[in-house]
């Protein structure tokens, strides 16, 4: 029986290892591959409000977020959801696009017009690009198309909880790594890293979100502004290049492959 030949476009567990190996084999970094459980921070009782009408889906999401230490409150329809959201207890709100009683986007608009800044993740079975744009325009902070891998959802929720401060620093630092945004130069310790503009852009994004799991879909959307799922393992190849330059063989690794999820940039242990 032939092995599964397709990389998952949803960054699920199955899509961990890109199957058509790039010339810089990711296997060389196999030791840097870490499991998702090790990198997702403990939710530390961060409270999440889930507004989702399908009880099965809601149950799975609650269980998954609960396992990661989040306190999840659940509303099954739009009206109850809006009430709970207005109470202001939630630190992140996950809202389904199509709800009985009230449209998901209406809730977001109502919250935003009420001056509420709580980050919102919009879930939708409508995958159209236009729909995504509408979701973000209504005041959503992120948009995730159903079906999704649960790790993708968790990565997004974490990203919303730890939105990068609007730093005015012109030099970003993480451990020995230093990125000068004015000079467009990168250094690891004393070693100058020669980066192509596209590599610089990727590393800058990762440094602004250090210690945070970044999924392939997030990187495609945010770094490359890609609005579709490419058939090729674009992210892996580009990440391989960057990692090759950032982590030399004799240095402790900083860019890690998170099994089944994506990548993370961390200071060397």
């Amino acid at each position, binding site marked *: 029986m032939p092995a599964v*030949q*397709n990389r998952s476009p*949803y960054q699920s567990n*199955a*899509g961990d290892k890109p199957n058509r190996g790039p*010339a810089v084999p990711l296997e060389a970094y196999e030791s840097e591959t870490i499991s998702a459980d090790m990198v997702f921070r403990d939710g530390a009782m961060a409270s999440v409000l889930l507004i989702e009408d399908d009880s099965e889906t809601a149950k799975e999401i609650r269980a998954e977020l609960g396992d990661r230490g989040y306190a999840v409150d659940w509303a099954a329809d739009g009206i109850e959801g809006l009430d709970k959201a207005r109470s202001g207890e939630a630190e992140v709100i996950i809202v389904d696009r199509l709800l009985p009683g009230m449209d998901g986007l209406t809730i977001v608009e109502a919250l935003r017009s009420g001056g509420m800044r709580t980050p919102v993740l919009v879930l939708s079975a409508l995958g159209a690009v236009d729909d995504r744009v509408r979701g973000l325009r209504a005041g959503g902070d992120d948009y995730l198309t159903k079906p999704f891998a649960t790790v993708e959802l968790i990565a997004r929720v974490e990203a919303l909880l730890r939105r990068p401060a609007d730093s005015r620093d012109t030099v970003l630092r993480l451990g020995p790594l230093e990125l000068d945004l004015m000079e467009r130069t990168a250094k690891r310790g004393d070693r100058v890293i020669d980066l192509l503009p596209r590599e610089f852009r990727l590393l800058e994004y990762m440094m602004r979100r250090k210690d945070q799991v970044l999924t392939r879909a997030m990187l495609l959307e945010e770094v490359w502004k890609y609005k579709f*799922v490419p*058939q090729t393992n674009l992210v892996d190849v580009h990440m391989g290049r960057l990692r090759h330059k950032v982590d030399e063989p004799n240095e402790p690794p900083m860019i890690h492959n998170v099994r089944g999820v994506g990548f993370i940039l961390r200071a060397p242990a």
Partner: protein
Amino acid sequence: MFAASDLSSVRLPDFARTTTFRWAVTVASAFLLCTLALFGFVYWQTAVYVMNRYDILLVKELQVFASNTPERLLQEIEDRLAKDPERIKIASLFGANGSRIAGNVETFPSGLTPNVPTNAVVVRVDSGLREAQKVRLATRSLPGGENLVIGRQIDEITEIAQIVVRALALGLLPAFILAILIGIVLSQRAHDRVLEVNRKIQRIVAGDLRERLTTSGRGDPFDQLAVSVNRMLDDIESLVREIAAVGDNIAHDLRTPLTRVRVRLERGRAHASTLNELRAVVDQAIGSLDQSLAIITALLRIAEIEHSRRLEGFSQVPLGPLVREIGDLYEPIAEDKGVALQVESTDEATVHGDRDLLFEAVANLVDNAVKFTPEGGHVELALHHHNGQTQIRVKDTGPGIPEIEREAVTKRFYRSDKSRRTEGLGLGLSLVAAIVKLHGFQFAIAPGPGCTVEIVCPQAR
């Protein structure tokens, strides 16, 4: 009341309910009315003419008679009546007291204006019997106080009327009946054709899409209609076939991975002895599910673009930076695969379009080219100006696309590799085709060697 309701419920024969028949009746009736009016006019004109001539003659005769001496006048009256075996003429002389002196009129008709011919009914006395007759008369008073009456019978005018009516009956009635008969025949034929079309349409509605309307080959409007309907049926038939084929393909492309999931899960459940083995099975199953979902996503995406009205979201897109960015994006991928990717952009054209979609289309072409070009091969992404048009060309040294398959590859689900072992959803080129079509550009697959695809943007500036 009853009569009216009975009439309305009377069911006319089929031919009588056709438009053709109603038109035939209308035209025949109009013809009838026109002919009647024409004949009536002819009769009227003839009668007026004949009457005028009588009147002129009467007035002249009156003058001639009056100018005679009394003796000669009596003689003349006698002569006039004697020379009239047909008994058409009238002549009489009455005394001043109204008594008849000579002639064939019993009494002097009263109320006549002298010298003006007038219609009147008089009683003739010359046949020995009193006989009323319709005549045209003129009177005149003579110097001796007598009154002279001259006239003639006007039955001829009635005869003319009879001739006219006979002519009408002989000519018009058959013509009218013929028109109605032709109307019946024509409407029967039209009715038969409609009936036949209706029968065929019923069959088509019942699901027989191969049925076609018959054409007589005369090129009349009815034929033209049949040809149009047949062309429409051709389109519908091919669309239905296409949908059926797409349905089959969807079923195939979704069933294959789903069957794999099922088999794996079943086998894993039966045979996996460690947690890791089970996990491997589940991972594979999720992979197959993702593949199925990706197919659905791609199909929805193509449908979204094909039915898109994004034109209002269009803006000016410079193609140079777009092409260079795609080159930049795919360069490491090509390099990893040992394929040389050469980007060449000599044209700084700007098109009216959706940047994201154009990016997706070109990226798809490059993605395909890199994927299908073997190691050591060469992929060229070029933006250039050619024959007054801006072209984006992606050329590779891969296996190429056989000529007979060039159109088919832009259809949903087509894949050159029939065995379906090559990775790819078979939707890439149809997505590109949909995006290109939305922009009003042209998409061409040029002959080999290798594969050369071009997006031609005619209105680029």
